[in-house]
């Protein structure tokens, strides 16, 4: 069902959906950005069209809505673990094509790598996605190169033209909007500002100890921002905390982790692996454009470019991919 709506009609539909859904979309938080006088755009609950930031790229990805940064799994006493309950409401997420392609990658790890993850599945089953059409490429985006500029597997699609909103409603539970029937295709980016030379095959042996990673030994500061903003990074660490008021009671949580940050590979007895930041950059790069593909048949990176946006050292991940391709072309 494809409809043309005005903002009032759209907001009325959102209000109706709010009864059964928590609705998440990119939202701008004024002057809450990393640098002075900058905004941060991140996912939060929205009630109306005006709440949504649809002009600019969000700094953080949509994955936080169904894979919380900090998720409590259990409450415990000294002799009992009790599973947390889950909000009865479903979740509706407005996101872009790259991010919906990212969801496929996160699903792959949590549902298709070994057993299904109980806590992920529990939340994921409640989520529906609305793809926000991208009429133009943002800075640092390279989704076309990663073949993730288009997503058809949405529950709804949306284009915005000034005060007119076009909705392609696929999932029945979302067909509560009133509007004028129309025909349209959800916008998608056909060309980015630059193309990335993504290697078709990577010779891991050749890349493992290549000099190209040495550059990152000094440039990268291991802050992990590139991981935390990525729609496809899935790693987490488990944490136990206990309450100050009653130290016999506490929570077991999982929190997002970063392969770039110190301590990620620590094992008992004081050993750790990949001490140099260049080795960590190699690990991340290979994961995004080689390892994941070797295991599951497609690349992990979706080319949203947020890692490039977020790096305080101006390290470009897209350039790193280009460099890998260049190394692959070099004669031995």
């Amino acid at each position, binding site marked *: 069902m494809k409809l043309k709506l005005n903002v009032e009609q759209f907001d009325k539909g959102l209000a109706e959906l709010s009864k059964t859904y928590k609705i998440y979309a990119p939202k701008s938080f004024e002057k809450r950005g990393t640098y002075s006088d900058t905004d941060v755009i991140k996912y939060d609950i929205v009630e109306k069209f005006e709440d949504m930031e649809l002009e600019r790229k969000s700094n953080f990805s949509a994955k936080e809505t169904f894979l919380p940064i900090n998720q409590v799994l259990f409450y415990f006493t000294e002799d009992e673990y009790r599973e947390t309950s889950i909000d009865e409401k479903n979740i509706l997420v407005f996101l872009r094509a790259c991010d919906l392609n990212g969801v496929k990658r996160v699903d792959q790890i*949590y549902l298709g790598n070994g057993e299904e993850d109980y806590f992920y599945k529990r939340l994921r089953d409640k989520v529906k996605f609305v793809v926000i059409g991208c009429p133009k490429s943002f800075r640092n985006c390279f989704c076309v190169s990663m073949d993730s500029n288009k997503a058809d597997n949405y529950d709804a699609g949306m284009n915005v033209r000034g005060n007119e909103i076009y909705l392609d409603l696929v999932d029945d539970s979302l067909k509560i909007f009133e509007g004028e029937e129309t025909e349209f295709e959800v916008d998608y980016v056909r060309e980015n500002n630059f193309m990335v030379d993504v290697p078709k095959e990577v010779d891991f042996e050749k890349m493992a100890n290549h000099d190209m990673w040495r550059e990152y030994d000094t440039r990268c500061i291991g802050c992990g921002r590139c991981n935390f903003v990525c729609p496809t990074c899935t*790693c*987490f660490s488990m944490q136990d905390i206990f309450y100050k008021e009653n130290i016999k009671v506490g929570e077991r949580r999982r929190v997002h982790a970063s*392969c770039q940050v110190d301590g990620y*590979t620590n094992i008992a*007895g004081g*050993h750790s692996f990949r001490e140099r930041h260049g080795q960590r950059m190699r690990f991340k790069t290979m994961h995004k454009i080689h*390892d994941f593909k070797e295991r599951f048949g497609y690349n992990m990176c979706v080319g949203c470019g947020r890692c490039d946006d977020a790096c305080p050292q101006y390290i470009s991940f897209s350039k790193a991919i280009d460099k890998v391709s260049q190394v692959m072309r070099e004669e031995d």
Partner: protein
Amino acid sequence: MKNNYIPVASEILDIIKHTKSEWTFRTKTNTEGVKPGQFYEISLPKRGESPISVSGIGENYIDFTIRNVGKVTGILFDHKVGDKLFIRGPYGNGFDINNYKGRDLVVVAGGSAIAPVRGIIQHVYNNPQDFKSFKLIVGFKSPDDILFANDLQMWSEKLDIVVTVDDAPEGYQGNVGLVTKYIPELKFEDLSEVSAVVVGPPMMMKFAVAEFLKLDIAEKDVWVSYERNMHCGLGKCGHCKMDSTYICLDGPVFSYDFAKTLQD
């Protein structure tokens, strides 16, 4: 749907104190299908979880041999017989005894790495007829660090065992030297029928494997077990990943022809 993160309470049936900081905790558990080399996530409220290898499999109990080195294991050493700890598992592929049956089997273990291979040794001890020959070479830092001394004594009555220590005070009667010293001395009739299992600290494994390869034993017949940060044990958290391999799911046991390709 099964909650694969929920730890289950397991009663401590016995605590065997090998050294000041290395104890075996015998815990009441269903042991169906558990293999040596597999691991459990030992879980203690307020402290977290830690992956620990199975060091013994009995009727309705599993042994975990643990060194007191971390925040989880530290608190465990305050536990007594009858207390409960929490576990979930087993995880990982473990050692498949069928790979070694009918062959010359050499097991080399360093320090607490005797834990993951103890089940193999127990199997050989109980079924020596399944193997063409067997040799265990096990090394510890010093005589005070020797684990499973009673087991070693018992096994040595039936099996060919070398116990060595890296360093010992003057007058020590036993073997002194690294485990690698004893590998070149091994003699086999047919190298294609030899399997080697090597488990221990990274450096020990590297050099022990090299000694076996020098003997011309095929890489596919040398088996190693990798220790990594197996945080969730379920292939999700990513900490143990090397290349496209998740150590918790695909390992921790690998044949060396594959393991040599893994890059940290």
